[in-house]
């Protein structure tokens, strides 16, 4: 998705730690307003790559451009336009949540009214007066995310923002992220929740061993990765032998109380199953997800 004025442009980035190649020749462009996901196993180089974009680390080789600036060395004109989720330990000790965020806001020279607005946005209004040491894990994480938003930046980096959140808080944060995208912000984030990446991201890059092994929209990655559809049929309605005889079945296996059929073309097979099993009641169709593609690309069982 090449644009005239990208948010981030990486060209042939290399970064070694001793003999270990953390980032080994990564190039891509993130458009303004894009929601961009970085996926990959732990230790794949995602965090190093994000830190290079943020300007916290210097690439050994290659060029980085962020909002038209070089992030390294420290550029105080660029920094207020970037927001980053801090570590959930990076709080000013013995301050309340509001006092901490007000301090961060002042460091960015943001308006004081933004503090309570941002606390409300991440759902911490009723915990604003609690000391940072007394917040729960999820609350600390939301306060860390608030640090990324309080100065209303154009480009937001989030590192596993939903990792410590319960399902309710996770959905609430999705809503916050969608609103930010709706307001034209660019979001770059890492996650291990692939359902989340599929639901939120415009494009995802899968990073393995310091290289990008796939980069596309979640839908296109899924379509390219695996064409197989699975049908799950209750075993008392269809025997394994009968299943294997159906047209278009590539494999059929028995898994507990269900027969699992794999096929490249679900339409005709569904019609055949309907006849053989006496209706489609209780029959489930499962298409490939981003998780299947991810596991395939990262060679994990």
């Amino acid at each position, binding site marked *: 998705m090449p644009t005239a004025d990208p948010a981030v442009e990486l060209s042939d980035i290399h970064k070694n*730690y001793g003999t270990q190649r953390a980032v080994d020749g990564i190039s891509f462009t993130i458009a303004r307003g894009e929601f961009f996901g970085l996926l990959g196993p732990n230790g794949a180089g995602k965090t190093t790559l994000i830190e290079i974009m*943020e*300007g*916290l680390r210097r690439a050994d080789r290659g060029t980085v451009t962020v909002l038209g600036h070089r992030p390294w060395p*420290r550029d*105080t*004109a660029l*920094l*207020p336009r*970037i927001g*980053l989720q*801090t*570590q959930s*330990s*990076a*709080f*000013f*000790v*013995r*301050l309340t949540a509001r*006092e*901490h965020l*007000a*301090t*961060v806001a*002042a*460091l*960015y*020279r943001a308006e*004081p009214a933004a503090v309570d607005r941002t606390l409300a946005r991440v759902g911490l209004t009723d915990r604003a007066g609690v000391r940072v040491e007394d917040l729960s894990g999820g609350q600390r994480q939301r306060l860390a995310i608030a*640090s990324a938003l309080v100065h209303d930046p154009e480009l937001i980096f989030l590192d596993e923002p939903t990792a410590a959140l319960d399902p309710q808080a996770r959905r609430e944060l999705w809503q916050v992220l969608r609103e930010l995208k709706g307001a034209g912000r660019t979001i770059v984030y890492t996650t291990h929740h692939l359902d989340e990446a599929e639901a939120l991201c415009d494009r995802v890059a899968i990073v393995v061993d310091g290289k990008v092994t796939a980069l596309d929209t979640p839908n296109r990655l899924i379509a390219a990765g695996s064409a197989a559809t699975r049908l799950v049929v209750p075993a008392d309605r269809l025997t394994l032998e009968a299943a294997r005889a159906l047209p278009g079945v590539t494999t059929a296996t028995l898994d507990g109380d269900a027969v699992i059929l794999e096929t490249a073309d679900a339409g005709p097979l569904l019609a055949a199953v309907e006849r053989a099993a006496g209706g489609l009641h209780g029959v489930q169709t499962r298409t490939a997800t981003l998780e299947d593609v991810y596991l395939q690309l990262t060679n994990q069982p």
Partner: protein
Amino acid sequence: MSAYAALSAAGYRAYTRDKTTLFFTFAFPLLFLVVFGLIFSGQTVEESGRPYIAYIAPGVLSWGVANAAVFGVGFVLMQWRRDDLLRVIRMTPTPLTSVLGSRYVLAVGIGLVQAVLFVAVALLPAFGLELAAGWWLAVPLLVLGVTAFLALGAIVGTYARTPEAVAAIANCLMVPMAFLSGSFFPLDAMPSWMQTLSWIFPLKYLNNGVSTALTGSGSGADIALGAAGLAAFALVFGAVALKTFRWSDRT
């Protein structure tokens, strides 16, 4: 609110909400004053004929102020770097001078409050300190002392990675220095080689200067020497602190 004011406010709150540090900073030096003051109550040092309290009060005060400056900034710098708070600050447009400036103002404020409290107690009849006419000259000396020892503490905080390391390094520096600079007992009663050696320590310049200002034990030249020595140490330590400063433990 400016970044500098916000950092100063955050530091002030963190400080006043920490009862252990408050005790260590304000009550601990007073404890030394009480113990030494009562042991040597009414006694004089043979070699000079001056009362013990005239040695002990400025000595313990100088040590207390220097100690608080070293420990205070050492702990904060180590902790901010370990918890990635320095990276947070680094990712904002706030200049390093605002960060250091806020710690400096806080340290000078703490040092002056320590001095007022300490001198007020030492003036009680039980201890019997008598102030000389030029006592106020101790104020600029204490400010210079805080500057030098804050810079020293910043170096400690840069190299230490754990609270235990800060305490170990700072104590290794400050405890021998306190004894060899005459903070806890009069150097006048010590061998002359030790009196000569003491001039390599910044605390000696603070002791000697503050002692002269508060008790009139020396001349204006002693105060000028103290100020010049402390300024020189502040410059050297400050240069090393800025040179070695790191935003993060990771490379």
